[in-house]
């Protein structure tokens, strides 16, 4: 698809030009997920995507995940819903996601990556779109099929995970302008980088709490002596 079609549409709609741009960048996700190599390149290098759209998709992703936990027909629910904490679930998706983006960005300097942090974040968020597009109808579908027909449901579920993973791979490759082999090595390094970041966070908080405890006890000691 050529770039001309999209540039021609910038005329400003009901909510002004900014909103029209936002809608265009949302719509561009459809192009990205079906033509990832071309799509991701244009997403960052031709400024087709927007951070606002990326935030939207991340939010929708979390929403979809929660919906599929809460609203899926009971035939296909395997997790004990009575024990699930929504905020915990969101955090368990969001935090690893952000840490992976961060570690990817940190390491891109070492690996000659071209991407900036917003680019990486945007590519990763756009890669989540197939999950939303498949999982939402799956919630509906789960109310229309019976347990014996679970095969369809499971296949869709598998696709909804594999597709975004593939997109994330391609997306990072295009954002950083890597070859596939280099990208693969880079991704492995990213995972290790994420572990290092986690470790640093833990160390930081443990030191912080130690420091806080020190000052608190210092204050108590002084208060005890003075009064």
């Amino acid at each position, binding site marked *: 698809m050529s770039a001309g079609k999209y540039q021609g549409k910038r005329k400003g709609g009901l909510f002004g030009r900014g909103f029209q741009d936002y809608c265009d960048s949302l719509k561009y996700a459809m192009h990205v997920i079906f033509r990832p190599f071309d799509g991701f390149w244009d997403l960052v290098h031709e400024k087709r995507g927007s951070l606002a759209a990326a935030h939207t998709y991340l939010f929708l992703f979390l929403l979809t995940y929660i919906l599929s936990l809460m609203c899926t027909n009971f035939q296909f629910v395997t*997790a*004990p819903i009575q*024990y699930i904490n929504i905020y915990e679930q969101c955090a*368990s998706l969001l935090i690893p996601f952000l840490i992976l983006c961060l570690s990817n960005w940190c390491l891109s300097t070492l690996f000659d990556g071209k991407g900036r942090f917003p680019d990486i974040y945007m590519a990763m968020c756009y890669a989540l779109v197939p999950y939303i597009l498949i999982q939402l109808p799956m919630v509906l579908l789960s109310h229309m099929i019976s*347990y014996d027909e679970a095969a369809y449901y499971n296949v869709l579920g598998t696709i909804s995970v594999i597709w975004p993973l593939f997109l994330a791979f391609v997306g990072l490759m295009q954002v950083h302008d890597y070859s596939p082999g280099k990208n693969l090595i880079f991704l492995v390094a990213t995972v290790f980088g994420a572990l290092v970041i986690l470790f640093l966070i833990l160390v930081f908080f443990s030191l912080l709490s130690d420091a806080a405890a020190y000052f608190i006890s210092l204050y108590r000691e002084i208060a005890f002596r003075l009064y």
Partner: protein
Amino acid sequence: MKRTHRLLLLCMALLLAASSFTGALAGEDGYSTSYTYNYDYWSDLRESPDAYRVEQVIYSADLALETPMNKPQSLFVRGNMLYVCDTGNNRILELKRENNVFSVTRIIDTVKGASPETFSNPGDVAVDEAGNIYVADTNNNRVVMMDAEQNFVREYTKPDDTTFDQNLGFLPRRIAVDSSGRVFVLATNVNKGLVKFEADGSFTGFIGANPVTVNMWDYIWKTFFTTKEQRSQQASFVPTEYENIYIDDEGFIYATNINFSEYDLLYDNAKPIRRLNSIGNDILIKNDRYPPIGDLYWVEGSADKGPSKLKDITVLDNDIYIVFDRTRGRIFGYDPQGIMLWAFGSKDNSEGAFLGPISLEHMGTDLLALDEFGCSITVFTTTEYGDLIYQASDQYLRGDYDGSAETWYEVLRLNANYNLAYVGIGRALMRQERFEEAMEYFKMAYDHENYGRAYRYFRKEQVEDNIWAIAVVLIAVIAVWLTVRGVKGMKEEVAAYERRQVSR
């Protein structure tokens, strides 16, 4: 991504279940056994009314025995006669139950005409329908058969066969006799399965050998990382022995097995309970979410941790099988589908608890549990609740589905947490073609499969009833789509025409 989350959640659920377990050990009304429980769909522990209560506990003194029982090992019931294998005193006690009182009718300690005439450390006793008595006379290396008057009939000794390792002593520990007089012997040190003798005393081979399970890492370790000397020091991979056997009315052998690692329970590799057919294959039905293994959870670090060790098994006439756990002194009942009906019991000194659970038998629906250290026999009788459960499953087996639903309603009145009752009612509703209500009941029991089945019928009904509406909506959607496409195409054509006009 999703799979791992499910796993995490499952782990969470397991932890919760484990923590709720601690509270469930103490009794409420003095009998620790009265604390009956069951597991729900999430394998959480659910308190339940008592299915069985202690009717009486029989000690040596109650039987007016001159020499008290000493390490009794086994019970056997035939009609209203109870046989106790009093191993430490080398004798068999024959008790009769009349008006709920057990009294000794005779003490069998000799076999007339056998050599030797006395027993040495007998392990088990069995009686066939004709009244012939079989004793697993362990240290005399024989199974001795006598008639009802204690006259020697036959003995089954070490098979003179190449398949039997002649270096091993023949130490029969447990026996079972089927209706045609075949004798199945569980012998110490024999790991090829059960030793089978025909009615005429001839040895006809082994059945039901435990398949050897080899852990991959063990195998790699032993093959590549140990020397020959080290290997000879270690235990080799051998099939394990069974712990106990029972023959049901149809001639199937139920066997329990306690030699397995905790890890093997995870994917049902351990199979602590088996039902062997005539060629020795395990045909136990397991339709529950968890296989029948006794307790699903236990408190780590407590004295009685570890998986349930099922010392004995007994099978009621309605194919409900009941096992006796050594680890925590529990008795578990399972229906023919492998679904746990109830569990109760504990290990201590109180009435209805056990010190050394060793053998379990049934007389009708009453349970008789033998305690080898307490030297006592505990008699349990069913409560209203236990009776209702049996009645409902009997009615279901007989095909009286509506009747069983009625009974299940009664069960629910006593225990609203009883999954099996919801499933039973759901099935009956489904037979009455009340699919929507059936779905509701299946949902309450988390029965995915039956829910799906009911839902399919429900969906079919809905589609058939509303076929016209569906057709109209479908046609309307297609019509709208075609129109929109047509209009779009026309617009494009017009635009193209205009462009051509302009460019000219």
